[in-house]
């Protein structure tokens, strides 16, 4: 059970098959079908062609630590028993190597097994021949691409460019899956024994129970898997190609070999293609090769047939992304002919993947099954010792087994996760990877990429200084330092606004809502002019530009020259305040120009510096008038003022950060900004939560000792001056230091980090496809706050699985205990097989599934996250379950003894017992809703209608069964008086109250104890 975190990461970071695809000899494809410690089932497609089963078994048994191997060529599977210490993955690799040469290698699979859509030319090498050969080969043109007619023909020949998912199982298959399980086999055995002993009614009852359970199981499983399958479906990806001589955008499925692909940054490549031209093209091939750094491509790179995949620099591959540069490429393979298509064929795993939680639950289910079978044996053995009838005892034991085996466990996990996905979708959170739902619940650190995530990734005007007065932009108005709106018609303000409009290359696209076309800073200046009410078009028309000179490395300012109607020429300068100011000798203040004294200069520069320290970008503006024929001279200018712009923080970011901190989640901001800017924003966001703000300023983290970085990342609130490639390092370092990391981002360069993070969160309208394609969760634009909702949902989902589990295990334990306890104490057999089955039917699956719908408990985001390495059932929880089942058992046995005293009659006594046990389980379902007990917390907040109906309905059924004579006969219970009915319920209510009170007390103790939560603060 403790293998969970490793399993999470392994599932998350699994690199695709890393066999050396370039080599001649390669091992056959081997996939793990199922594994538990000591036992692994492999699937080896190549086994189909094998004729020496024993030979292969001998080879595989020779692997160190392997005890027994069964090879089944017909099902293409290998089952191995091995030392528990050997991980399945290691066994898989060794098996693949051992079979090298004995079975056909993965690439040499016969063509007949490739689906019909695969092109016939699939096994050729595309990186080796001359480009011209390929162009000829596909009858295309390196300039004009294919013609529509050719595309049509090709499409008919090779089929659409799509990796088809295996069709989902039919309803019948789901049903079949439900009835081909061990518990059902047990039940069937029980039915056979019933028929043999003349209990036809029993057999019918058992049959009904099987049918109903199977129907419920199949229905929920089908629903859930549908939701989960939806996640992996690609949405209509678009590509740019040249066809008929024109560039056009088409859907990825329409690509055919011979198409001319246009590549630009952020593109997802959807087919394998040979490069024709490229310009500093770099590709992230991590999806294919596991290499996390982008690969620089080269058209002329010579390759031969043996060049490994990762070194084929003249090729681009489907499933990879363009991180920089541009290029054109000739599509050579689509769909299953692509490298990624081959891998998918080899992996052959279209089934919904099992999440770590499901794996854990399966294991747990196995252990519980063993435990209940032992209990059955005990009941049988004890009964036989007491000389009971063999057949009856056998039937009882089998029925107990059926009732006690928690067959609902994996279904509970699937259902709960699916519900989590659906709930998140309602909150506009798109889950792309089912594992993310449970991982979200254990996120301990969130890395926030500043630009485009915390900020709006644009520039907005913040402040200006005119005539030595500082003004700020607030609520779309200019206000003075006291917050009073000022008149923007004041001449010195107007002068500044006019000049920043003229010396500006941006254009206004629309006024409401404001939208501009141009550089971010200049857009912000135009926005300021609009806020000041300036008529931009009129202003520009009145002063046509006649000349301009732009800023350069050595000259941090630009100027434009404009024709004035009657007063010669107007020169406008804007740029670095210090530089521009040094060229001025006068200053424009209210209505006139004054001499720029040394004191004024100092004051201006001080304001410039103060704003700079506040993370603002500051520009100085000056102007000059000259005659038409005069040359432009950059001296004796008139200073107009300072303008400060900044990338504004999104609304609600501070609340987001404090929400995360409240939830015990540490935050880390990553930015390329200078430290001053980064620290100012970190402080604004209160990333330091009252402690000293810790900023790590480094241009190149790769120079740092990795172990040192691991230690430092935990102590850092803000990473400043970080290059994009370092984001991945930060995420990895946090993970090494034991944190479960979520990362937000929206850019191309965030891709690797998003992927490496345990949960990658992309912004909905991410600037490019890459961020979204590798993210596990996509949140709506401008709604990063929903990250909190996602974390809450993740936590609630996990909590619900645990609650359902708690319910299932504690009630099943009580059933076992009642049966074993009665035998031990020499009481009558408490419940007959049909009664056990009835109980299994009404109290097992439905309340557990309903618990999965439980809304998040209030306060769930005021607690620290669960430890990611904590098993879903801890020792403490197991103890609690045993205690609770013990009280339920005590109540039930009490009821049994009461019945025996009162009726002496076995049937009515069993009625009492059954009634008590069913009621106790229903009460337990209610109590499981709150971890701290219902009595202590009460039931405030959302109600769970599903659970209430499940409990209410079950209770009604039970009352009905107890009061309608035919049903009573079928259930083999005798009639009960009203008083006894009430008494039987009291025997159930008592344990529930004790249990609930006890739970509340434990929770209270835990709350007052000093939290053992790790110190994420200082």
């Amino acid at each position, binding site marked *: 059970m403790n293998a969970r975190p490793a399993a999470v990461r392994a599932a998350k970071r699994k690199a695709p098959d890393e066999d050396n695809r370039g080599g001649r000899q390669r091992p056959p494809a081997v996939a793990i079908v199922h594994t538990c410690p000591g036992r692994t089932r492999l699937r080896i497609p190549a086994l189909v062609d094998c004729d020496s089963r024993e030979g292969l078994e001998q080879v595989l048994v020779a692997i160190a630590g392997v005890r027994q191997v069964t090879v089944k060529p017909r099902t293409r599977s290998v089952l191995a028993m091995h030392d528990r210490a050997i991980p399945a993955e290691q066994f898989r690799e060794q098996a693949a190597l051992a079979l090298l040469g004995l079975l056909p290698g993965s690439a040499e699979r016969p063509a007949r097994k490739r689906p019909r859509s695969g092109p016939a030319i699939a096994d050729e090498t595309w990186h080796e021949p001359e480009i011209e050969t390929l162009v000829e080969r596909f009858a295309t043109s390196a300039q004009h691409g294919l013609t529509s007619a050719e595309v049509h023909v090709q499409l008919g020949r090779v089929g659409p460019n799509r990796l088809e998912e295996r069709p989902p199982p039919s309803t019948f298959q789901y049903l079949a899956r439900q009835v081909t399980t061990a518990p059902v086999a047990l039940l069937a055995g029980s039915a056979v024994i019933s028929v043999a002993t003349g209990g036809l009614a029993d057999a019918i009852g058992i049959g009904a129970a099987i049918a109903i359970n199977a129907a419920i199981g199949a229905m929920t499983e089908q629903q859930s898997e549908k939701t989960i399958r939806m996640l992996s479906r690609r949405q209509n990806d678009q590509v740019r190609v040249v066809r008929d001589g024109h560039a056009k955008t088409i859907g990825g499925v329409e690509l055919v070999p011979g198409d001319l692909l246009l590549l630009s940054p952020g593109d997802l490549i959807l087919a394998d293609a040979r490069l024709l031209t490229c310009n500093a093209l770099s590709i992230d091939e991590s999806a294919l090769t596991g290499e996390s750094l982008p690969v620089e491509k080269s058209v002329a790179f010579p390759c031969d047939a043996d060049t490994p995949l990762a070194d084929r620099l003249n090729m681009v591959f489907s499933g990879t992304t363009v991180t920089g540069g541009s290029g054109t490429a000739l599509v050579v393979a689509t769909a299953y002919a692509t490298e990624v298509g081959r891998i998918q064929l080899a992996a052959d795993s279209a089934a919904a993947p099992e999440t770590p939680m499901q794996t854990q639950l399966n294991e747990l289910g196995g252990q519980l099954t063993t435990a209940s079978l032992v209990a059955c044996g005990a009941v049988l053995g004890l009964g036989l010792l007491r000389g009971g009838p063999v057949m009856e005892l056998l039937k009882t034991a089998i029925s107990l087994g059926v009732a006690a085996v928690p067959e609902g466990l994996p279904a509970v996990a699937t259902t709960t996760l699916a519900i989590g996905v659906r709930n998140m979708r309602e909150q506009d959170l798109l889950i792309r990877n089912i594992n993310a739902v449970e991982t979200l619940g254990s996120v301990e650190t969130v890395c926030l990429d500043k630009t485009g995530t915390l900020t709006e990734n644009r520039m907005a005007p913040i402040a200006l200084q005119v005539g030595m007065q500082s003004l700020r932009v607030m609520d779309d108005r200019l206000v003075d330092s006291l917050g009073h709106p000022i008149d923007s018609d004041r001449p010195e303000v107007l002068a500044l606004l006019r000049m920043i409009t003229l010396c500006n290359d941006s254009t206004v696209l629309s006024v409401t809502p404001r939208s501009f076309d141009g550089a971010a800073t200049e857009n912000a200046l135009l926005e300021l002019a609009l806020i000041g009410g300036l008529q931009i078009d009129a202003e520009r028309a009145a002063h046509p530009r006649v000349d301009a000179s732009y800023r350069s490395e050595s000259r941090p300012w630009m100027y434009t020259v404009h024709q004035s109607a009657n007063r010669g020429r107007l020169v406008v300068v804007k740029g670095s305040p210090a530089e521009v100011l040094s060229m001025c000798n006068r200053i424009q203040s209210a209505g006139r120009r004054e001499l720029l004294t040394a004191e004024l200069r100092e004051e201006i520069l001080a304001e410039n510096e103060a704003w700079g*320290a506040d993370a603002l970008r500051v520009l100085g503006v000056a102007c000059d008038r000259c005659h038409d024929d005069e040359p432009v001279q950059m001296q004796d200018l008139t200073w107009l003022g300072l303008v400060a712009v900044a990338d504004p923080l999104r609304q609600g970011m501070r609340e987001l950060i404090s929400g995360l901190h409240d939830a015990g989640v540490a935050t880390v901001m990553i930015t390329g900004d200078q430290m*001053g800017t980064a620290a100012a924003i970190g402080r604004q966001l209160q990333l330091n939560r009252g402690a*000293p703000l*810790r900023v*790590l300023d*480094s241009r190149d983290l790769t120079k740092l000792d990795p172990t040192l970085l691991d230690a430092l990342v935990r102590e850092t609130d803000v990473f400043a001056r970080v290059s994009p490639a370092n984001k991945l390092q930060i995420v990895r370092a946090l993970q090494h230091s034991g944190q479960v990391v979520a990362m937000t981002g929206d850019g191309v360069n965030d891709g690797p980090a998003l992927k490496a993070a345990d949960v990658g969160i992309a912004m909905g309208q991410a600037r490019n496809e890459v961020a979204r394609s590798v993210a596990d969760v996509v949140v709506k634009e401008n709604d990063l706050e929903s990250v909190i909702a996602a974390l809450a949902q993740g936590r609630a989902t996990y909590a619900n699985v645990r609650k359902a589990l708690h319910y299932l295990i504690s009630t099943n334990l009580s059933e076992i205990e009642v049966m074993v306890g009665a035998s031990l104490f020499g009481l009558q057999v408490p419940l007959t097989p049909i009664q056990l089955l009835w109980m299994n039917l009404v109290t097992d699956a439905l309340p557990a599934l309903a618990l999965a719908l439980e809304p998040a408990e209030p306060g769930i985001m005021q607690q620290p996250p669960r430890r990611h390495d904590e098993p879903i059932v801890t020792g403490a929880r197991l103890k609690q379950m045993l205690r609770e089942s013990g009280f339920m058992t005590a109540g039930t046995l009490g009821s049994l003894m009461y019945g025996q005293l009162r009726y002496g009659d076995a049937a009515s006594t069993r009625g009492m017992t059954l009634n008590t046990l069913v009621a106790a389980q229903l009460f337990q379902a209610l109590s499981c809703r709150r971890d701290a007990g219902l009595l202590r917390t009460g039931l405030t907040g959302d109600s769970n209608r599903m659970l209430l109906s499940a409990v209410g309905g079950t209770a009604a059924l039970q009352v009905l069964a107890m009061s309608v004579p035919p049903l009573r006969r079928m259930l083999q219970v005798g009639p009960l008086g009203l008083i006894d009915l009430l008494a039987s319920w009291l025997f159930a209510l008592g344990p529930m109250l004790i249990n609930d009170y006890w739970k509340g007390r434990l929770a209270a103790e835990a709350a007052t104890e000093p939290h053992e939560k790790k110190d994420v603060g200082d």
Partner: protein
Amino acid sequence: MADNYIFVSESVTEGHPDKLCDQVSDALVDEYLRHDHAARADVECAIANGVVFIGAHYHSDAEVDVAAAARRVIAAAGYEEGEFNAADCTILTSLNKVSYQPRLPELPEAPDDEWLDQYVAQHQATVFGYACRQTPELMPVPIQLAHRLARRLDEVRRSADLPYLQPDAKTQVAVEFADRQPVRIDTVAVVASADAEQVASREAMTGDLIDAVIRPAFSNGGIGLDDDTRFLINYDGLIRAGGPAMHSGLTGRKNAVDCYGEFARHSGSALSGKDAMRIDRIGAYAARYAAKNVVAAGLADECEVQLSYSIGLARPVSVQVVTFGTGQVSPGKIRKRLLRYFDFRPAGILHNFGLRSFQPLAVYGQVGRTDLDLPWERTDKAEVLQ
């Protein structure tokens, strides 16, 4: 005490990691002051494994780009390329904005007692000041010589006369004393880091250092080298790189270098990284000021002044004077005169010294400097003390 003995003091260059930390700390105090005249700041710095750690407690609204300022210091100390360099070393900062300390006061023209008493010592400190007649600046000779050597090393490295020299170096001078007066230089030791690839041989480097550094450093005035003076240069014969890539540094580790080279007592608390309201820093300056004026006034040939402060009191709880038997008048009398003519209250010292810039102090010693116009090196009170 024997009549003849040898005393050894050491100094380090500006590229020594400990001194680098001192300079970063003081540069940041200056940086806060530059943005905000009344800023208070305590800045600690440590360098290890190529990572610079800076912890600052400051009382100011100014947002200082701490990392940029630190990089400027590191670059100025000569680390512009190589394994550890100003451009891409990693800087981890912990910035704590506090508001519990009073900010630096505006200095009135003529402060009255009420104003002066208002600013009490916020730290307990026992600080020492010392002066003697061994050099014109009234300092012990060994430390002054060690500083001269360190300074000369930096000059030579900067002028690129010896292109292989790297910023990190340590100097040590052993001076023979007779009757508590320096008579000759016994040993000169230098450990200088160098780029091994550019050094022709160990012998060449030793020769270079003796000719270009040591001899010029001791040529102007005072006791000089003699034929028996020993030179220990890179003691183990290895030519090695130095600096933060090789060993760690910490603010306040070089107290003796900052003061009297262990010839006289110095306080345990560091000087660098503290602002002008920290009595454990400015108290040491005030004590040196007092001691120097006592010697300058001819009241003694050697004088140590000790000041002890308690938290919450403006005046020192203890003022002691020791003259080592060289006094023309009794220490008790000197003490009385000091109390009459010197104001040892924090605000008094601040008003008298008007401290605004600390970074230049952080290398080559904080007392006995003649290259800087330091108020505590003035002898303007000598006359009234006589």
